[in-house]
């Protein structure tokens, strides 16, 4: 959009059409006329944007009505049946996502960007966000951690280890050495997934730990510099 001097007569001419335009009900020559004008006039474009947000805000007033019994199950069943993915056993499900992301990282940065040795924590490329790292416990993969540089930055973790249950605490260590407790979550039958926002940029995250109720480290993940 250019910031041309505003031609008041043209603005006045289209002003009656802006609401219809914002609602998407304007058609034909009138729509073309408004479209051409708002592409050049920042004032009218701002009005259209504001009218659109007003119309959107009305949708937020939609009444909350209890959905029919079993609704969520039917949605999930239908989604699974329509998504072109074979039924993956629970144990492998977390790692299917991880594998896809790791594959993309490998392709993007070369296999050398990933270091994965049994018995040590695995590293990810930190140059691309969202970045992922495998969560390891005593050399075994037990889940996956993602961090992303959104606003705010966030972290997402999946854990799948049948030997755990109960509450676990997640801490994040940043490049400057400070540690942030970002939340706690409950593992049910060894499985849990959760997400939280971070107070510092995800690019500053160097490691993540999952700590048990008694303070012992259950698992950790490291992000490369």
């Amino acid at each position, binding site marked *: 959009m250019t910031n041309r001097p505003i031609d008041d007569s043209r603005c006045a001419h289209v002003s*009656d059409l*802006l*609401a*219809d335009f*914002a*609602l998407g*009900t304007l058609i034909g020559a009138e729509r073309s006329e408004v479209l051409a004008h708002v592409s050049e006039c920042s004032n009218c474009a701002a009005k259209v944007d*504001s*009218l659109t*947000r*007003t*119309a*959107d*805000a*009305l*949708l*937020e*007033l*939609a*009444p*909350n*009505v*209890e*959905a*029919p019994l079993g*609704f*969520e199950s*039917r*949605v*999930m069943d*239908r*989604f699974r049946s*329509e*998504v072109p993915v074979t039924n993956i056993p629970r144990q492998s*499900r977390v790692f*299917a*996502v991880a594998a896809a*992301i790791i594959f993309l990282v490998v392709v993007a940065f070369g296999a050398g960007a990933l270091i994965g040795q049994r018995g040590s924590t695995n590293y990810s490329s930190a140059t691309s966000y*969202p970045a992922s790292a495998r969560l390891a416990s005593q050399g075994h993969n037990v889940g996956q951690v*993602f961090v*992303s540089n*959104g*606003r705010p930055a*966030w972290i*997402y973790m*999946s854990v799948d280890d049948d030997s755990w249950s109960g509450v676990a605490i997640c801490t994040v260590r940043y490049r400057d050495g400070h540690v942030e407790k970002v939340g706690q979550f409950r593992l049910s039958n060894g*499985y*849990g*997934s*959760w*997400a*939280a*926002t971070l107070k510092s940029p995800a690019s500053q995250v160097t490691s993540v730990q999952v700590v048990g109720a008694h303070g012992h480290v259950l698992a950790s993940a490291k992000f490369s510099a």
Partner: protein
Amino acid sequence: MDDVSDETLLSAVAYGDDRAMLNFVRRYQGRLFGLALGIVGDPGLAEDVAQEAFIRILRHASVFDVRRGSVSTWALTITRNLAIDSNRARRAVAVSPEDHLFMNMASTDDAPDDVAIHSDESQRMKRALATLPIEQRRAVILATIYGRSAAEVAVEESIPLGTAKSRIRLGLSRLRESTSTREAL
């Protein structure tokens, strides 16, 4: 995941996490079903619409752009568009707005659940809507929620096309001014 933001939850959905998907559906099912029911007026059809909306949201979570609006607006817009399409496909008979749930939108009496769901901004909008003359309120709701064109509003309300256009325009503009003025205070 009950305490995470909509945006964070949707990010987890985009990564394909089953638990996040289920949580997202649980969080939004009442609102999407409520919106669909308000527009199509039939519980069975409303479930079909809401289901389809969720399928699209779960499938396209990765393309959601937070800079273009909130998750709730995105989800509700998808639902509204599907409900409008459904009405058009079955050539739904025009129904008086009084028969729909949405004429209650201007009520300032909220059920406790709705107070929890609706943000301050929504509460402001609700109050602003209540101040509109009833004919403008009806025209705005028909146009914004039910997707009626000005010509369709004119037919349903038995008014000239020019009158329908001005009611929609004036009503929406007054809502915009009312809510933006409060924001600036």
